[in-house]
C-alpha cells in the first residue's frame, strides 16, 4: 500500500473532509492517465464541496476543462 493510499484511508476513518480533498487532489496529480486523474479529482472535488474547501474552484475548473463537470 502506498503512503498516500494509507493517508487517504486514515482520513476516511477520521471523516476528515478537508484532508480527503487535499489527499485525493494529490492522487489526481500523481495519476498516470487522464481518466485516473479525473476519478481522483472528482473524489477531491466532492469532499471540497462538502466542507466548502477553497480547492473546489480549482478542481471544478480541471474537471470542466476535461468535459467531466458542468
Amino acid at each position, binding site marked *: 500500500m502506498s503512503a498516500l493510499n494509507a493517508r487517504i484511508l486514515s482520513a476516511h476513518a477520521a471523516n476528515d473532509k478537508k484532508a480527503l480533498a487535499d489527499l485525493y487532489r494529490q492522487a489526481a496529480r500523481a495519476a498516470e492517465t487522464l481518466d485516473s486523474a479525473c476519478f481522483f479529482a*472528482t473524489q477531491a472535488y466532492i469532499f471540497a*464541496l462538502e466542507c466548502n474547501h477553497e480547492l473546489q474552484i480549482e478542481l471544478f475548473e480541471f474537471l470542466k476543462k476535461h468535459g467531466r463537470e458542468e
Partner: protein
Amino acid sequence: MTQTTNLSSVRRPVSEANGLPNEHYINHDIFEEEKHALLFSNWAGLAVGADVPETGDAVPITFLGMPLLLIRDRSSRIRVFQNTCRHRGMILVETAQKIEGAIRCPYHSWCYATDGRLISTPHVGGPGKNTHKDIDRTTLGLTEIRTHIWRDVVWINVDGKAPPFEQAMKDAIQRWAEFEQPMHHGGADSRFDLTVKCNWKLAVENYCESYHLPWVHPGLNSYSRLEDHYNIESYNHYSGQGTLVYRQLEGENGARFPDFTGLSDKWQTAAEYLAIYPNVLLGVHRDHAFTILLIPDGPESTVEQVHLYYPSTSTDKALRSKNTAQWKDVFEEDIFVVEGMQRGRHGAQFDGGRFSPVMDAPTHCFHDWTAKNIQAHRAASHKSA
C-alpha cells in the same frame, strides 16, 4: 376495509353536538386519514426558526413518518426539504449539524446546495465522468416542502394545496397585529418538551378552553378567576381563550421583563391563547409570548415542544428561568387531564360527549373544523376512486 366514522352529530350547533367519536383518538386508520385530511393539507407547525439560528444549520425531523430536513440556507432563508436523495432515496442528513458547503448523500455522494439545487453527480457517467446527457440536474433538486414563517413557527403545507399562508391565517394575523414585531427566543432555558400519552387533538381541546382552569389550575384562582376569561372562536380557523387580568412575573428585586412596544391599553392586563389549527398553540402577553408545537407520534402519543419568546435579546436569565418553570408547572398540571381523556376514549360506549353550550364553544369550534376537513377529504377521495 378502512375504518370510517359518522361525523354528522359533530357538526351540529354546540348546544346539540357530540364530540368526535372515539376512533378519532385511538384508531390507526383514522389517524392516517387525519394525517392527510388535517395535517398535510393545511399549514401545520413543524419547528421554530430558533432551531436553526445560523446559516447552514440543518436538523432532520421525522414528521408523521415523513423524513424532512429543516435548514437555513446560505441566504439565511429557512427551508424544508424531503430528507431524501433524488438518486436512490437515501436519507441525506441523519443528525443535526452545520452544513459547511454542500449536502452530500452518504451513499453515492450526489451533492446538493443548501437551497436544494443538485450541484454534482460524481461518476454518474462512469468513473471520473460527472455528467450524463440523461441526468438533468435542474430537474433533480431536493423536493421542497411549502414553508412559511410566522411568529418564528416554521409552518409547512405538505400537499402544497392549501391557500397562501397569509390568506389561510388572515384572521389570526389580524387579531394579533399589534404583536407583529421582533420577538426573541429566550434560548436553552426557554424551551422544553413534554411527552404526553394522548392524541394530539386532546392537547388542542384542553388548551383552547378556560372551563377547566379552576379545577385543574387552582393556583390561578387567586387572581385569574374563571369569570375573568372569555372564549375566542373563529370558525374554520382557530379558537382559544383570553384573560382580562394578566399579571406580570416579578423577580426578587421587583424586576420585570420589558414590554413589547406600542401595545394598546387592553394588553396592560390582557393575555390571549390561541389554538391555530391544526397543531400550533400560541400565547401572547405584554412582556412575553410562547409557542407550543404538538408533534403527533401515533394516535395515542404526542410531543409538546414549548418555546418562550421576549421583546428583547437581553432579558434576565433568572427571571426567564422562573417564567419557564412557571409555565412548565401549568402545562404539567394538564397532563393527567389529556391522558385521562385518552384512556376514557377506550370506553366503547362513549359517544363523543356533550358540550357546555356556554363554556365549550372553543372546543366545539375545533371539532367542527376537524369534521369539516375530514368530510371534505373523504368526499375528494370518493370522487377520485
